[in-house]
């Protein structure tokens, strides 16, 4: 009896809080699903069986004592392995963090635990979040639970796979250029990148600080809303955290889209977009029709500068990464390869500890910031971000919500794009602009491709308007075509 779409975080928490079920039994059921299929999927870098049992028992004790453990009481959650957990290895799927146990919890971890959630493990990712397939992991690839020959997307591929496989109803990912939304789309689950600053980054191992954002991955829109309510809201330990409480989302999900103005972004869905698949375009058209049928007005629109998003992103993100990843030098934590002097030790350690994609991006970013090139690359790209923000601002004068596919294609075969970085980067073309602008967007499963694999629709909203974004997502979820893959029903 494996958990299916009917088993939601919301439902489990309600049962645990009311004493209908114990947190421990919920956990054991999920652990048995993990036990059955983790070997072939490899969603986790680490499963915390004993810690999770202890945490579930604490929740049960709270219930027994008449205390409310919180809105996620007894809900098993998986954490992307770039989110710090005190005393528990946090590897970023990199050899360079071998042996490191953070002396502190990320803010989101503290908030999940305070809400009664039970952390069951740390999920695989592209090393430091750099990739779109979870193939760039020092600990092996994660497979798509819906077709083990295919990638789960990335970089939060482990978290998306864990949710799709029924290992946990909820997972946390991080999204720098699409790393939550694209794997969610490829695995047929919901993935949310909140407005930059809605969720604290304290304890998220940085890839590109001005783009990174933690967000939920779940099987239902309502569960993502619930999780975002728990992890969102101001945190004084993150200077870029927005000083307001988390938005109330769960209560707005049934409000519908009557009267909303929705625009389809031409540049991210039209024929001009390189490599966009016919079936993806077809599902987007159906999604638009469904929203129209639900009372929204839908029209095509243009956000012209989004075509420069990919170029700007692959300068800004590597530039910030080159600096963020300097600290992996073999001095204070993690891997050290010894050498006769400190400088050579740094070189030996970093050369042995980082994978090729990480090295590539560090070098790209170092180059973009180096003397003589800053203005041409980094300076220019930061100006492109301003253009993109201005273009979005214009579009949002006419529309409440924008729509595009999440990814240009369904999940691609493992190994297909590993030798051509540029081909891999093109996977992020639809998702990147939200990160560059700091706006929220989310992926909602909406039907299948010709290969029977899921397709995700991306819902984009202006900064801090998660409420309207979730309203639209809820309608898309309820109108999605039948024939959805048996999520959680792992063969």
């Amino acid at each position, binding site marked *: 009896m494996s958990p299916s779409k009917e088993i939601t975080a919301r439902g489990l928490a309600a049962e645990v809080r009311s004493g209908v079920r114990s947190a421990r039994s919920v956990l054991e059921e999920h652990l048995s699903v993990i036990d059955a299929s983790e070997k072939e999927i490899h969603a986790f870098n680490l499963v915390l069986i004993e810690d999770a049992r202890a945490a579930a028992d604490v929740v049960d004790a709270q219930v027994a004592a008449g205390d409310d453990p919180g809105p996620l009481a007894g809900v098993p959650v998986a954490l992307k392995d770039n989110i710090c957990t005190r005393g528990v290895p946090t590897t970023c799927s990199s050899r360079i963090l071998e042996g490191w146990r953070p002396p502190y919890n990320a803010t989101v971890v503290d908030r999940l635990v305070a809400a009664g959630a039970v952390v069951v493990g740390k999920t695989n990712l592209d090393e430091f979040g750099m990739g779109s397939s979870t193939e760039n992991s020092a600990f092996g690839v994660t497979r798509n639970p819906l077709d083990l020959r295919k990638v789960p997307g990335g970089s939060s591929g482990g978290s998306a796979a864990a949710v799709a496989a029924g290992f946990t109803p909820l997972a946390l990912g991080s999204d720098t250029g699409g790393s939550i939304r694209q794997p969610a789309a490829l695995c047929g689950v919901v993935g949310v990148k909140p407005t930059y600053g809605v969720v604290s980054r304290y304890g998220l191992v940085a890839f590109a600080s001005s783009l990174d954002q933690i967000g939920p991955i779940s099987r239902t829109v309502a569960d993502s809303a619930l999780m975002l309510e728990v992890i969102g809201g101001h945190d004084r330990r993150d200077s870029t955290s*927005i000083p307001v409480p988390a938005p109330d989302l769960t209560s707005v999900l049934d409000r519908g889209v009557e009267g909303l103005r929705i625009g389809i972004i031409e540049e991210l869905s039209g024929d001009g977009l390189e490599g966009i698949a016919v079936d993806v375009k077809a599902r987007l058209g159906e999604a638009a029709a469904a929203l129209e049928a639900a009372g929204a007005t839908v029209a095509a629109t243009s956000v012209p500068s989004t075509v420069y998003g990919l170029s700007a992103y692959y*300068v800004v993100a590597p530039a910030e990464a080159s600096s963020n990843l300097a600290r992996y030098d073999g001095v204070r934590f993690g891997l050290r390869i010894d050498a006769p*002097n400190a400088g050579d030790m740094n*070189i030996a350690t970093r050369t042995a500890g980082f994978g090729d994609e990480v090295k590539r991006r*560090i070098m790209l970013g170092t180059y973009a910031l180096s003397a003589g090139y800053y203005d041409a690359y980094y300076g220019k790209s930061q100006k492109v971000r*301003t253009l993109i923000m201005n273009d979005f601002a214009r579009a949002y004068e006419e529309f409440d919500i924008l729509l595009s596919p999440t990814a240009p294609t369904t999940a691609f075969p493992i190994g297909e794009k590993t030798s051509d970085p540029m081909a891999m980067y093109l996977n992020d073309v639809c998702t990147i602009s939200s990160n560059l602008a700091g706006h929220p967007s989310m992926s909602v499963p909406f039907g299948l491709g010709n290969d029977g694999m899921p397709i995700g629709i991306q819902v984009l909203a202006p900064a801090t308007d998660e409420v309207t974004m979730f309203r639209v997502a809820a309608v898309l979820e309820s109108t999605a075509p039948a024939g959805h893959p048996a999520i959680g029903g792992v063969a």
Partner: protein
Amino acid sequence: MTEYTARQRISRSEVAHVADLARLSLTDQELDAFTNQLAAVLDHAADLEALDLTDVEPMIHPLPVHNVLRPDVVGETSDRNEVLSCAPSIENEQFRVPPVLGESP
């Protein structure tokens, strides 16, 4: 994937210099491969060259916030043993490193 032989946007020696700045060492083979791959990415980024951005302000921050300040109050410190237990090499409660050539800038 495209092979870049002539007129590359980044030269082999520039890649070598960048690797040096980033404290990475590359084999000759890696140097060739990385040069081609970085050139491909920079080639893609060449579409930005056509943009006239003279009057556009670079984005410093996604949100218009400023003056995020913390009161000067002592907070929790880390447990030294917990921190040192993750260090590759320690001596006398300090982080031990091979001899440092040259002084701090």
